[in-house]
Each structure stands twice: as C-alpha cells, then as structure tokens.
C-alpha cells in the first residue's frame, strides 16, 4: 500500500512537471538548450508546488 502511495505521488509530480515543461516551451520565443534546462528546473519547483496546492485544496478522503 505504501509503495502504491509513493508511486502515485511520483506519478502526479511527473505529470505536473511534464505539463509545465510543455507550457514553458509554448510561452518562450526561441527554444535552445539553456531554455530547456531553466524550464525543466522551474517546472520541477512548479510541479511540487502544484501538488502541494492540489492537496491543500482537495483533501484526500
């Protein structure tokens, strides 16, 4: 059960991260390596914040 919870958490953060990276790539003007790196890092922070926000708003029953 514990493994399942961890997997679900990792999956959720990864899903947020992927969505945020795509959003970043859509909003910038030119795509190059540094933008990828900065975008991936920012999306990582954003994904953790998004999960925390989702958990604060929607309490798991």
């Amino acid at each position: 059960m514990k493994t399942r919870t961890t997997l679900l958490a990792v999956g959720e953060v990864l899903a947020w991260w992927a969505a945020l990276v795509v959003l970043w790539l859509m909003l910038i003007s030119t795509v190059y390596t540094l933008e990828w790196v900065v975008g991936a890092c920012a999306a990582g922070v954003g994904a953790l914040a998004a999960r925390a926000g989702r958990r604060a708003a929607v309490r798991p029953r």
Partner: protein
Amino acid sequence: MNGWILAATVVLAVGLGTTLWGVATGPLGRRVVAQNLSTALVCPGLLLLSQGYDRTSYVDLALLLALLGPVGTLVFARLLADELAEEQPRAWGLTWAAAGLGAVVVAVLCAVTGPGRSMVKLLIVGALLVGGNLLASRAMSGGFPGVSRG
C-alpha cells in the same frame, strides 16, 4: 497606423474609457463589474497592439493581464463579500460581449499567425482571458455559495 493599431485604439478608447468611467462612478456593484470588464477589454487591445507594432513582447503583457485580472476581481469579490452579497452584481450580457470580443480577437490573430508555438501561446492567452473572466463574473454575482466567505 495600420488596421491592427486602429482596432486596438477603438477597443482601448471605447472599452477602457467606458470601464474607467464605470469604475469611477456609480454604486459599488457597478464599479466592481466595470473593474472586471476593464482587464477583459485591455487584454484584446494589447494583443491587437502586439500585431500592429509587430512586437511579440506585448503578448506577454496580455498573458499577465489575462492571468492577474480575474485574480484581482476574485480578491475584490472576497474582500467585499458582505456588500456584494446584498447587490449580487450581474452583467452577463456585457461579460459575454467582452468574452466574445476576446475570442474573436484571438481567433483572428491565430488565423494571421498560422500554426506554431506562437499560435498555441495565443490560444493559452485566450483561454485564460475568457475562462478567467467568466469565473470571476460568476464569483462576483455569488455563483459559488459553497465557498466560505471571510
């Protein structure tokens, strides 16, 4: 001056002028409605200006405004909850008109831009603009009674 700048001037002059007048005069409910409409009208104006001047950085301004405008209205809806509970300001005709203007501007700009990342960005701005304003209008008119008011 080209057609885009002319259209932006009309949108800004008529839209922003009217909403500023609405914000500055009249009862509280009307002021809040006008404040909400002002961002919904300035955002398409900025999009038109970005096309007219060929400066893509104006799209970023429109994106910020589309994001922060409804958030500002939600703050007002929260802070003025007691006063607004009596009035429950509704202006669905104007709200849908502003949303329609935003949708038309975004659609025309998408058609001009053509497929690509900048078109996706425009669509994101449009979705935030229309969705955010409909949400903010609903919150203002007491459309979310389940949310605790403080």
